[in-house]
């Protein structure tokens, strides 16, 4: 197991290097004078020059990258020249909101997908399966912002159950907090539910054709016991992979959903800094998001090894 972890971790290093390099280059290779862009069109030459010195833009690119990376590793992603807040502080402030959204959305996704996926696979081709597959296919074809608009229309305008936008901190009022998260979490969660249902269904159908399931049936075990205890775990690998990818992706906040529902998460921070042309923040947040994505996926790889002993002994999945 230790050799396995070490091997995986060694693979992580070059990927992290490439990813941080991209985040740095993204903002450094944009055409035009970065200092001029950040200072805005009405800036005086003096303030542009001051900004250029502050950001060390007169240094050569590789040198700037090394110095930026060196600080980043020690937990310093720079300070926004606009708000004078450090990027790390901004991320710390916004992260809990994105994490709550992530947690609630994935919860909705799994709570819907696991029972529906199991039931669909159990009677594949049946009425429920056809209805669920059709619904999942439809949901996956709706762009996120359209889902959001429709949900706002249904739940906030027509039924008047929850606020359309806004955010209340959990500690101020937990109930209002959950109400403000309901629509955004549902918007993200619906898509996840549809994707997970499809994945679990197809893997489960394959598992249910295995000999050991027939054996369990022959022993007279109750159906729910076979489905949940025998078939679910070996059918959940693709689901786990995609869950991992989605968690990694949502660590960086749900850009669109946070913007539509005015949730001050990481995604919103990114959009705000892009609008404000605050490249220091954009750079830092993009690096954080990309690294989080890679690290979470690394975690999922390790989780496989815990769940399936075949993987840590270097054999491929059957």
């Amino acid at each position, binding site marked *: 197991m230790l050799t396995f972890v070490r091997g995986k971790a060694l693979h992580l290093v070059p990927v992290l290097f490439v990813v941080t390099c991209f985040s740095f280059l993204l903002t450094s290779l944009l055409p035009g004078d970065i200092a001029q862009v950040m200072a805005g069109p009405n800036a005086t030459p003096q303030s542009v020059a001051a900004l250029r010195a502050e950001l060390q833009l007169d240094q050569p690119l590789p040198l700037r990258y090394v110095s930026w990376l060196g600080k980043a590793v020690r937990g310093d992603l720079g300070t926004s020249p606009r708000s004078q807040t450090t990027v790390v502080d901004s991320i710390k402030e916004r992260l809990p909101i994105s994490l709550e959204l992530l947690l609630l959305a994935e919860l909705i996704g799994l709570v819907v997908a696991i029972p529906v996926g199991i039931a669909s696979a159990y009677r594949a081709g049946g009425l429920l399966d056809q209805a669920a597959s059709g619904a999942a296919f*439809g949901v996956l074809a*709706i*762009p996120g*912002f359209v889902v959001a608009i429709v949900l706002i229309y249904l739940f906030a305008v027509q039924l008047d159950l929850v606020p359309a936008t806004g955010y209340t901190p959990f500690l101020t009022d937990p109930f209002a907090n959950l109400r403000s998260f309901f629509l955004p979490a549902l918007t993200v969660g619906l898509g996840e539910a549809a994707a997970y249902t499809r994945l679990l269904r197809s893997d489960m159908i394959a598992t249910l054709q295995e000999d050991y399931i027939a054996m369990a049936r022959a022993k007279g075990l109750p159906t729910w016991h076979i489905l949940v205890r025998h078939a679910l775990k070996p059918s959940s690998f693709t689901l786990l992979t995609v869950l991992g990818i989605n968690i990694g992706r949502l660590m960086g906040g749900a850009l669109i959903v946070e913007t539509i529902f005015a949730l001050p998460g990481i995604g919103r921070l990114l959009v705000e800094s892009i609008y404000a042309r605050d490249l220091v923040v954009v750079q830092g947040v993009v690096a954080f998001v990309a690294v989080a994505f890679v690290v979470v996926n690394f975690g999922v790889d390790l989780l496989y090894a815990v769940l399936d002993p075949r993987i840590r002994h270097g054999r491929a999945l059957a």
Partner: protein
Amino acid sequence: MAAPSPELADQALLVAVPVPAAVDRRPGAWRRLGPSFWLTTGWLALVTVVAILAPVLHLTDPNIQDLANREAGPIPGHVLGTDGLGRDMLSRLVWGARISLTVGYASTLLGMALGTLLGMAAGYLRGRLESVIVATMDALLAFPALVLILAITTFVGHDIRIIVAVIGFLGIPAFARVARANTLAVAQREFVLAARAMGAGEVRILALEILPNIVAPVLTFGLLVVAVAMIAEGTLAFLGLSVPPPAASWGAMVAEGRSDLDVAPMVSLIPASVFFLTIFALNLAADRLRRVVEIREARL
């Protein structure tokens, strides 16, 4: 997949002639796509034709503001009603289709051309080139795509050509993967060996033997990418970062109607439905086509 029978082996030899193998010519292939495929294709064709013909359709000018009839329902002269500025919804939908479809098709073609080229090179030439291509594509895929689009369009500009270029660029890794996987499968086949034995060069083999045999799966995948590209443009437009107003774009139309969801929901919901129908049609068509293409591959 069934166990290989002598009969299937015979068929495999027959199908192994390069050109016919690319297209399923057996009777019933079109019928097996099912009525839903033809319905969705019909919708896509309708949207495309209407978008192309927009300048000659005698529609109301999409930017003329009929301020007496703002957020009106269907009235004479405005079949689908008007938006918050009194502009004709039908006309804006049709002109918006031009932007959505242009970005969808053009960026997909760009990504498909470059991605397929890279994927074929990686899958056929193998070696160090393959490692470099695969590693670069994986790193690109790990990068938050929407962030890249947002950043570049904000700083470089909202010209439709820039939007097409950025979305197309982001499609390259996906196409490279699909093309490489299919190339790997085809490169082992007898007709490639035969071509090589006859002295064909690498470029000739790639262009005349490999390409015709991976075109079907790559094109099918391309339909899905058109949908993704249209969603990306719609999302940009929704955030106000696609082609600048007053140009009509489906995503922008949904966004413009958003503040008045309580009084005139149709201003937002009509473009939202058209957008959904189009994406749904693309997904369904791709799904049906994929089944036919895969059945063919399973029978090889």
